[in-house]
C-alpha cells in the first residue's frame, strides 16, 4: 500500500541500466581480514591493556588465575578424592591451561561482535577481527601462563624434556581450533542472544566430558552401556586430541602420538574452515540484528 504511493515522479532520476565497471567487486573476505591484521594486533593490545590497567598485580593476574584454580582442583583431587597420579598439580595444570584457553576465548569471543557493535554500525571492516582479537589476547594469556606451569614443574622436580619444544606447535593448533569455534559462536550470538547462556552450560558439561581433570588411561574397563557411550563421546570429542598436545610434553615428557596430532590438526582446520565460512556468510546480516 505504502509501496504504491511511492511511485517515483517523472522528475526523479530513473534507474539507468548501465553495466558496472569490472574489477570493482568486494575482495574476498580472507583478503579483507588479512588487510586488517594490524587492527587485530592493536585490539589484542587494547584488550590486555584495558583488562590489566586498573589492577595492581597487572599481568601477574594471568599467571595467578590458573594457579589459584589449580590449587582448588589439587586440593579436591588429592585430599578429598585421592587421585592416583604422581605430581598431580603438574598433571592438572597441563590439562587446565589449554582448557582455560579454549573456554575463555570462546566465552569472551562469542560476545565480541555484540560488544563492538558501535564500530560495526559505523565503520566498514571485517567483523571477524573482533573474535579473532579475543582469541589473540587469550593466546597471549595462555603463553604467559606457561610461566607458572614451568615454575611448578621446577618446584615439583618434574623433568624438563626436549618434548617441550612441541608446545609452540600445540599452541598453533589450539589457536586454529579456538578461532574456528569462536567465529561460529560469535555469529550465532548475534542472531540469538541466549547462545551465550547455552554455551556456558555446555562448557561446564564439556569440562567433565573431556579428559581435562582426568586422563583417558585412568578410565576403567566398565561394560555398562552408559560407559560405552562415554567412551564413544571421548573418541569424538576434539578436546581428547587437543589436550594431550600440551599434556604429553609437559607431564609425560614425550611427544604426542602422530594419530593424536593428525586428528587434532584435522579438527582444528575443519573448525576454522567451517567457522570462517559460516561467519563471513552471515556477516552482511549482522547489522540488521544488532
Amino acid at each position, binding site marked *: 500500500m*505504502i509501496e504504491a504511493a511511492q511511485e517515483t515522479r517523472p522528475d*526523479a532520476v530513473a534507474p539507468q541500466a548501465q553495466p558496472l565497471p569490472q574489477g570493482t567487486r568486494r575482495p574476498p573476505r580472507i583478503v579483507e581480514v588479512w588487510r586488517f591484521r594490524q587492527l587485530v594486533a592493536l585490539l589484542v593490545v587494547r584488550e590486555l591493556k584495558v583488562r590489566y590497567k586498573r589492577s595492581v598485580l597487572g599481568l601477574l593476574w594471568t599467571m595467578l588465575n590458573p594457579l589459584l584454580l589449580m590449587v582448588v582442583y589439587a586440593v579436591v583431587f588429592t585430599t578429598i578424592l585421592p587421585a592416583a597420579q604422581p605430581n598431580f598439580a603438574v598433571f592438572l595444570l597441563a590439562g587446565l591451561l589449554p582448557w582455560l584457553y579454549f573456554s575463555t576465548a570462546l566465552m569472551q569471543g562469542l560476545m565480541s561482535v555484540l560488544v563492538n557493535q558501535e564500530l560495526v554500525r559505523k565503520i566498514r571492516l571485517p567483523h571477524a577481527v573482533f573474535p579473532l582479537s579475543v582469541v589473540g589476547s587469550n593466546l597471549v594469556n595462555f603463553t604467559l601462563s606457561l610461566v607458572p606451569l614451568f615454575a611448578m614443574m621446577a618446584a615439583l622436580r618434574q623433568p624438563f624434556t626436549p618434548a617441550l619444544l612441541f608446545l609452540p606447535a600445540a599452541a598453533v593448533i589450539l589457536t586454529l581450533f579456538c578461532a574456528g569455534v569462536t567465529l561460529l559462536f560469535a555469529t550465532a550470538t548475534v542472531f540469538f542472544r541466549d547462545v551465550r547462556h547455552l554455551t556456558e552450560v555446555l562448557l561446564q558439561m564439556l569440562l567433565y566430558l573431556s579428559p581435562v581433570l582426568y586422563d583417558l588411561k585412568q578410565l576403567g574397563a566398565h561394560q555398562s552401556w552408559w560407559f560405552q557411550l562415554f567412551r564413544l563421546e571421548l573418541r569424538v570429542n576434539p578436546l581428547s586430541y587437543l589436550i594431550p598436545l600440551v599434556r604429553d610434553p609437559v607431564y609425560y615428557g614425550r611427544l604426542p602420538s602422530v594419530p593424536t596430532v593428525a586428528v587434532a590438526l584435522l579438527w582444528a582446520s575443519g573448525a576454522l574452515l567451517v567457522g570462517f565460512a559460516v561467519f563471513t556468510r552471515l556477516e552482511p546480516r549482522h547489522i540488521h540484528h544488532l
Partner: protein
Amino acid sequence: MRDGQIILQDVGVGYRIYREKVSTLKEAVANRFRHLRTAEKFWALRHVSLQIPPGDAIALVGHNGSGKSTLLKTIAGVLEPSEGAAVTQGRISPMIELGAGFDPELSGRDNVYLNGALLGFSHKQMAAKFQRIVDFSELGDFIDLPVKNYSSGMYARLGFAIAQDVEPDILIVDEVLAVGDERFQEKCKRRIQDFRAAGITFVFVSHSLSVARELCPRAAVLHHGRLAFDGPTDAAWERYRELERGPAPGPVFQA
C-alpha cells in the same frame, strides 16, 4: 573507474520487520521459527541510482527516516545493498560519527592509532601523521589522558582531526559540523573546502540549507527511501520543502 567515484545502481536496502521480536534461540525454537515466515520486508531505500564522479560534492537531504543515513552507510560499505549495486573506488573516510571506535579507557594517543587501524592504516603511517593530528585537534597535553575524561567538544575535535588526515578519496560527513564550538566548526568547514579544492569526492548529510549551499553545488532529495530529486542545491531545497509541506500536488505522493 577512477578513485573517488561512486556509482549506485538501483540500490535497495531492505530490513526484515518481524511481527514478533525474536532475539533468542529459545523463542525461535518455541514458535518453530515462525517469525521468519511472517516477517515483512521494509525498504529503507529502494531504486536509488546516483552517479557521483570524482571531485563532485553532493548533499543529501530528506526528512527523518527518509533513508539518508542508510544511503550514507551503503556508500561507506557498512551496509550491503539487498538489491542493486553500490560501487566505490578509493579510500573512504567515514565521518558518520566522529570518534566512532574510541575506547574510553585508552588515552587519546592510543586512540589515534586504534582509529587509524580501523581505517586500515599501519602503525608507521599513523606515527607520521600523529603530530599533525594532535596539532589540528588543539588537544596539546590532553592527548595522553584517557578519552573518557574528555569533554564532548574535545572528543569531536580529536575525531575530526583523525578523519581529516586520512587522505581520503571520498569523504562522507553526517552532520558532524554540529559539534564543537563555532571557531572549530569554521575550521572544519575550511578543511572540507580544502578537500573540495583538492578534488576529493564529498558526500554530506545536512538539515541546513546554508551549510549545504556553502559546501555542495549539487543535492539529492530522499523521500521515504526513494530518490525524489537530484540536481542543483537550491532547486533540491525547493523540492524538499514542497515534500515536507505534506501531500504533494502530484497524485503519486498521496499516501
